[in-house]
């Protein structure tokens, strides 16, 4: 367990801004998305042309999706070219057996209570990095590609369809793609639970103020800070 020494600036402004825009977008997208699949509000009274209830939910979903995409692309840029020690991809090498070595195993064993002393990282620990890769990186790409493919369907041969329409061929039909978009959307609430729990738990166990660090950017430096980026 680490001991408090000094403040350490971990999450730089671009990472924090990305985090909160992303959190907001995912929340809006998930709620509006569920509504589009199952419009539960009771119908309005009057002529159909007076109302745009369903149209608004779809509009908000699409508009938020574009903010989400822009934010996601910005984060990718930052991860590749940002020269940010804790926000870059450089340390994450799942194709290399070395990456799956002792630090990863130690962290995993600690999470499964097989190891008493928990390693402590300034940035993401290897298990956290893998989780983010699977849920956020892969999950976001999946939702963005299927989402844009569906968005282009109102105008086959148009701009969006020309760029992303091929995605539908992976799923066979548009309906299957819709189903998978809906299914994979659930990755985000599952991730949210894991994420919130892990953060709060680390804060209690390590006392490194990881929870507030995504607002302030500062964690507290702990006794041993292994040089293991990401």
């Amino acid at each position, binding site marked *: 367990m680490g001991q408090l020494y000094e403040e350490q600036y971990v999450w730089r402004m671009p990472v924090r801004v990305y985090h909160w825009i992303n959190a907001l977008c995912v929340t809006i997208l998930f709620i509006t998305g569920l509504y589009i699949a199952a419009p539960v509000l009771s119908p309005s009274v009057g002529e159909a042309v007076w109302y745009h209830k369903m149209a608004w939910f779809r509009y908000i979903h699409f508009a938020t999706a574009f903010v989400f995409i822009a934010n996601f692309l910005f984060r990718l840029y930052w991860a590749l070219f940002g020269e940010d020690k804790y926000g870059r991809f450089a340390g994450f090498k799942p194709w290399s057996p070395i990456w799956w070595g002792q630090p990863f195993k130690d962290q995993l064993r600690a999470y499964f209570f097989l190891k008493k002393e928990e390693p402590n990282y300034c940035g993401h620990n290897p298990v956290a990095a893998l989780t983010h890769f699977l849920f956020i990186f892969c999950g976001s790409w999946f939702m963005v590609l299927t989402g844009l493919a569906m968005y282009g369907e109102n105008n086959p041969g148009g701009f969006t369809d020309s760029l992303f329409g091929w995605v539908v061929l992976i799923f066979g039909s548009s309906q299957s793609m819709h189903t998978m978009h809906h299914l994979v959307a659930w990755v985000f*609430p599952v991730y949210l639970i894991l994420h919130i729990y892990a953060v709060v738990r680390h804060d209690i166990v390590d006392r490194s103020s990881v929870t507030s660090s995504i607002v302030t950017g500062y964690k507290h430096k702990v006794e041993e800070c292994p040089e293991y980026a990401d």
Partner: protein
Amino acid sequence: MKKETTYQELLEARGVNRRDFLKFCSLMSVYLGFSSAFVPRIVRAMDTKPRIPVIWLHGLECTCCSESFIRSSHPIAADIVLNMISLDYDDTLSAAAGHQLEAIRKQIMKDYKGEYILAVEGNAPTKDDGVYCMVNGDSFTNMLKETAADAMAVIAWGSCASFGCVQNAKPNPTGATPIHKIIKDKPIVNVPGCPPIAEVMSGVITHLLTFGKLPELDRLKRPKAFYGTRIHDKCYRRPYFDAGMFVENFDDEGAKKGWCLYKMGCKGPTTFNSCSTVKWNEGTSYPIQAGYPCLGCSEPGFWDNGPFYTRLADVAFLGTNTNADKIGMVAVGAAAAGMAAHAVGTAIQKNNLKDETAKKEEG
């Protein structure tokens, strides 16, 4: 067997006057999405070009495509098509049968090598050497390959030939395979639908005749002119969709008033076809207009995207038939339970550590 009659000669012989003939040409031009400038080209093609020989094969199918085809709203369309087929080869509509009919097929393949159109209704079972569909003592798969070898182009009529339809729905016991996965070296046009709209079928033939090539196709090899928009985008009930006024039951007020059928499982938003524009039975109606949700019959794998009357499709998952929301909620529940258990574990571990530290201090 060689014939050089043009469509116009044929129609004259059958007593169709010039006025009706021109009306047919204009209609086809509209369906194909051409400007009026193209009407003379269609007229000229019909006037002068010899009829394209067509061999029409039937594989695993229900003949609903043929049934639709012979009911083209415009009488001349039916005439053209029927004559063309009955004079060449179609095992359902031909007068001849048995060896005589097979001889005709062989003759056409010889006389019009590389010039005839192969129209296929239904698909081929590939499992167990194709024994699930036998024609004239041989498997349909072999017959299809043999006939396609010398064809100019292949038209896959209907969802069976295009995508597989009901016979290749899971678990696909006969290994039913759509045409484009068997015939790889010929230009293929898919004309899906269960059945396809009659006017769409005659439209494809008219295009072939006028321009001597297949119409412009989309990613799934469907003619863009007919499969270029979703039913949803040209549906006359679309305002109810946007307003959020949905039918909740087949016998509720919304159903009576003709509201949107989205919540009744309408697949209009994911189905590319001309039902909401060309319509059926001489432009009388189409499923949604009759108060019935679109089943998406012209989409690949539509049988596996059921049930028909719910928006959310069933997903086969770990041997159960569930849906995306149920899987998602179970996953969320499992994550919450897992984290709760982990929290207990963490508390116990922390307590143990505290005890150990206390013991050390005592010792």
